[in-house]
């Protein structure tokens, strides 16, 4: 701050007066500005089936006070401060994901994400209208398209919806008068790769120079079975004082390694093996820098080397998890450069694996039907818990697929049966916004109670549309994506549940965070549908052929409407094609030699009419018809 003041002083004489004022304001600002913290955390959780989940979370929390302080950023990236000034966005989630999280064997992830790109944001401000939110939403997506080098600029009104029930805001604002708007969009086709990881790392205070972020090398990150980058921004303001605000930026990287791919012989692993190198230190700007290693469940069979400095037991909703904690700042306290590595050593020769219990609620999605015209989207939600669970399902069906709401069915079956019975579940809430081609996606939210230990099959019939030939992406026969469905529920137990409570901002805030219910959000698989495709190679042919058929009608109708009826002599043209040609040729030949004879033959004069022009032909014929056969009238009907 003082540096900025000096600059002012040098550049403008007016700053003299400012200087007098600064001591007052400065002290006020410093009170907030010192309150900026950066935390880095890494969670390593061995998963079932020789998988390892590593979860990085970088949290910047800035108690910035009033809006005007946003001009001077330190740890928080400047762009985040700028969007808070420019747009009325209060909360923003972006996920860039490759792969599929397997709930049944892996449990729930710490941060949910769907394949491809996903973003949703909450807007709030007095006098905000729906159309201005739409505009801000598109601009915001464009901004992050540039920041993260992702195709978020394709987010517009044709693939965005305003979810009604499924998302709950996690921000707090001053005053409660203003309306809240939410927008949600997914780009399931987005491919996440190095070009997204590099700019994402640049948002960190230390970049990828030091700290836990040095572990995120694209060569290793993109070899994983599942990787998901996330950016979450939210603001927390005092409800009475609008100048008492916090902005929280959480960057997450959630990776799942398949150990079999790393090392064929055994399932031992280490930080070096997972990330290609050991840890070379901590980010000097970080307030805390910690690694949490899960020691129970799948982590039980591993010996750690070195041993964690501390062990913590977190009990959430009746289920305990044991974590070993490494404080990196302590590890690197002494002088000298070194690399820090943690190794997980499994028991030798023991390949027996524990059976994991499936999480209380999980879901799958698939397409039914064949052909490129009709189909059914089926979403299966399975409740393995012993109590009924409330479920809200949100579908975002893109405009190139027509969904028929009246075909929405929710069938249920007890878990042990294989076939779905005809008994249907009633839905308790339904929100539907019909789609419109090239304008709006179909937005469906349906809520119902899922009975205990049973599963529900939600089906809806859809039509696949034929699009204009330029609306198909390259490789049209690859198919078009339908983004994943979002399923939300309230779990009464904390089994497999590791998501952070909305009031916390660090991973360690999730420890012992027992609540009455746990809000769970799931994403299903994305679908790929093959739409009927036109032939891309022949637009000219199609245009010509269709116009020809139109002309086929136009010509005869035009002649019926405009031409006169005449009679002419039945010709003596032979029927045989060859003789016809000979006849024509000989006629033409004799006509040239003796033009005076021409008028005698009707057919011949008709042929020559091409040279003479139609009017003369008509005259000639009419003359003949009238002179030779006065009874033959011309009729003009």
């Amino acid at each position, binding site marked *: 701050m003082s540096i900025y003041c000096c600059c002012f002083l040098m550049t403008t004489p007016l700053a003299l007066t400012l200087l007098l004022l600064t001591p007052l304001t400065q002290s006020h600002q410093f009170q907030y500005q010192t309150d900026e913290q950066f935390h880095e955390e890494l969670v390593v959780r061995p998963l079932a089936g020789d998988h390892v989940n590593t979860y990085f979370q970088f949290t910047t929390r800035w108690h910035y006070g009033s809006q005007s302080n946003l001009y001077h950023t330190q740890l928080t990236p400047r762009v985040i401060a700028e969007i808070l000034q420019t747009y009325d966005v209060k909360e923003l989630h972006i996920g860039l994901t490759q792969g599929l999280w397997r709930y049944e064997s892996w449990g729930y992830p710490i941060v949910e994400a769907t394949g491809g790109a996903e973003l949703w944001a909450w807007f709030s401000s007095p006098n905000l209208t729906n159309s201005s939110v739409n505009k801000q939403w598109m601009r915001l997506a464009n901004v992050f398209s540039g920041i993260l080098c992702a195709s978020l600029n394709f987010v517009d009104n044709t693939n965005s919806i305003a979810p009604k029930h499924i998302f709950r805001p996690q921000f707090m604002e001053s005053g409660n008068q203003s309306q809240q708007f939410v927008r949600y969009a997914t780009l399931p086709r987005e491919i996440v790769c190095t070009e997204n990881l590099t700019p994402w790392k640049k948002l960190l205070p230390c970049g990828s120079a030091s700290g836990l972020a040095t572990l995120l090398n694209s060569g290793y990150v993109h070899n994983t079975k599942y990787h998901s980058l996330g950016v979450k921004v939210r603001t927390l303001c005092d409800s009475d004082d609008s100048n008492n605000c916090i902005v929280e930026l959480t960057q997450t990287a959630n990776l799942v390694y398949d150990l079999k791919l790393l090392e064929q012989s055994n399932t031992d692993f280490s930080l070096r093996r997972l990330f290609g190198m050991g840890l070379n230190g901590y980010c000097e700007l970080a307030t805390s820098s910690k690694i949490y290693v899960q020691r129970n469940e799948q982590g039980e069979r591993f010996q750690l080397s070195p041993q964690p400095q501390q062990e913590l037991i977190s009990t959430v909703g009746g289920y305990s998890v044991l974590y070993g904690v490494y404080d990196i700042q302590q590890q690197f306290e002494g002088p000298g450069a070194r690399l820090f590595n943690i190794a997980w050593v499994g028991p030798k020769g023991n390949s027996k694996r524990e059976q994991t219990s499936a999480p209380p609620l999980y879901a799958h999605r698939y397409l039914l039907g064949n052909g490129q015209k009709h189909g059914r989207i089926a979403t299966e939600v399975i409740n393995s818990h012993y109590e009924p669970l409330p479920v809200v399902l949100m579908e975002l069906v893109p405009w190139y697929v027509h969904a028929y*709401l009246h075909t929405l069915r929710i069938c249920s079956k007890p878990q042990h049966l294989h076939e779905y019975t005809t008994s249907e579940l009633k839905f308790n809430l339904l929100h539907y916004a019909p789609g419109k081609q090239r304008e709006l996606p179909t937005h469906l939210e349906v809520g119902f109670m899922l009975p205990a230990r049973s599963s529900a099959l939600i089906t809806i019939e859809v039509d696949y549309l034929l699009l204009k030939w330029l609306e198909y992406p390259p490789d049209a026969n690859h198919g078009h994506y339908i983004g994943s469905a979002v399923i939300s529920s309230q779990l009464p137990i904390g089994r497999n549940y590791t998501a952070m409570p909305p009031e916390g901002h660090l991973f360690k805030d999730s420890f012992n965070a027992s609540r009455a219910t746990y809000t769970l959000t799931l994403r299903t698989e994305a679908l790929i549908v093959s739409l*009927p495709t036109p032939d891309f190679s*022949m637009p000219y042919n199609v245009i010509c052929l269709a116009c020809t058929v139109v002309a086929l009608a136009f010509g005869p109708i035009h002649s019926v409407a405009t031409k006169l009826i005449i009679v*002419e002599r039945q010709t003596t043209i032979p029927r045989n094609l060859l003789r016809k040609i000979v006849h024509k040729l000989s006629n033409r030949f004799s006509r040239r030699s003796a033009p005076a004879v021409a008028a005698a033959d009707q057919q011949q004069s008709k042929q020559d009419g091409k040279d003479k022009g139609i009017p003369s032909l008509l005259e000639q014929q009419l003359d003949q018809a009238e002179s030779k*056969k006065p009874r033959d009238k011309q009729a003009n009907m």
Partner: protein
Amino acid sequence: MDSNRYKLLLLGGAVRLYFSNTSLASLIGNRVEFATPLNSFKRLQEGVFLLQQGVDPYGGDLVHESPLLLKALSGILLNYAQWLPILYILFDLCTATLLYLLSHTFVKQKLKQQQGECKDYAKDTEELQYSENDQFKIPELVLLAYLFNPLTILSCVGLTSTVLSNLLLALILYTMVKRQLFICVIVLAFETVRSLYPVVLIAPLLLIFARRSVGLSIAILMVFVTSCFAVAGANFLVMNSWNYLDGTLGFIFYFRDLQPNIGLFWYFFTEMFEHFRTMFLITFQLNATVLYLVPLSIKLRKEPLLLATVLIALMAVFRAYPSLGDVGFYLALLPLWRRCWKFMAHGFVVFTFFLITLSMMGALWHLWIYAGSANANFYFGATLAFSTGQIFLITDLLFAHVKRVFCLYNGQRILIDGEEARILLE
């Protein structure tokens, strides 16, 4: 004769009832040849369901039925859904009856007209004149052609709303022939607001009701326009928003849905270059409405019903979302022109075209959509050929009519120098 008619009607109803209880019903409901975005039953159900849920059906892209009909049918669909096929069959039988009655009246009028004109007719033209027997023969043929045409049967079995369009069209023609101006104008206005293209039928209407009187025709036009607005207003009152206009007429005019059908529009606008789209859209819509209206009205001013037939047929070929039900309707009108049949040269060609293209459509559709071994061009080829066949039929009818009238006054055997002459249009 009358009992025969009832037998035919009963038989037609029984055939429809039988097929609507088979799996054919759902199959046809999904066939693009019969169910277009405008008339498909599935979309009607969707509209009714959305209305029930309190969602504006015209906010989306699925429902294109006019609000009045949607409301009326929603009452039936929600309370008596199982009776709906019966209702549609009854509608179809009404259409057949109306066509029967109208052709009966038409032939009577023709006979009367012939009595006045017969002294001008040439000698050997008895077979070109309507005979007393035609009074019974032609209506029966019309009835047969409507009741037992597979196209109309299937379109009724698939519960397409073409059944309703056909009923309204038949009502318009019937009231035209019966000279009931008021009903005719109202029904025409209703059908115009519903599906745009029938607006061309105002020409035969004017030719029948306001012959030679400009003042009267302007008055009728005014009544027509007023009733169009009244119908639109009534629709507005039902929905309380003007959204439906874009959902029905706008949807037809702008041709937003490129789903394959039997018409010319779908593949043409799929492959169209975007910057020419508007131009060709206007061209094609003009082609389907006003392009042939004036010349044919002038040419066929003495035969308003033929004009109506040809316009309905052209509509069925060139409209944005044609279905085979439309084709079935105008085919049923052809027996009215039985006395022209002698001059229709392409009967066999057209029949073959219809037979082959209609059977090819199913096969090529399967190859394209399900087997993946053909592409859209194949199906497009079949629909193109089908349209060509229809155009042959229509132009053939026109030529036949022109020749018949010529021959009626000049005799069938026209001799030049003792040799038989040909009749040509030049």
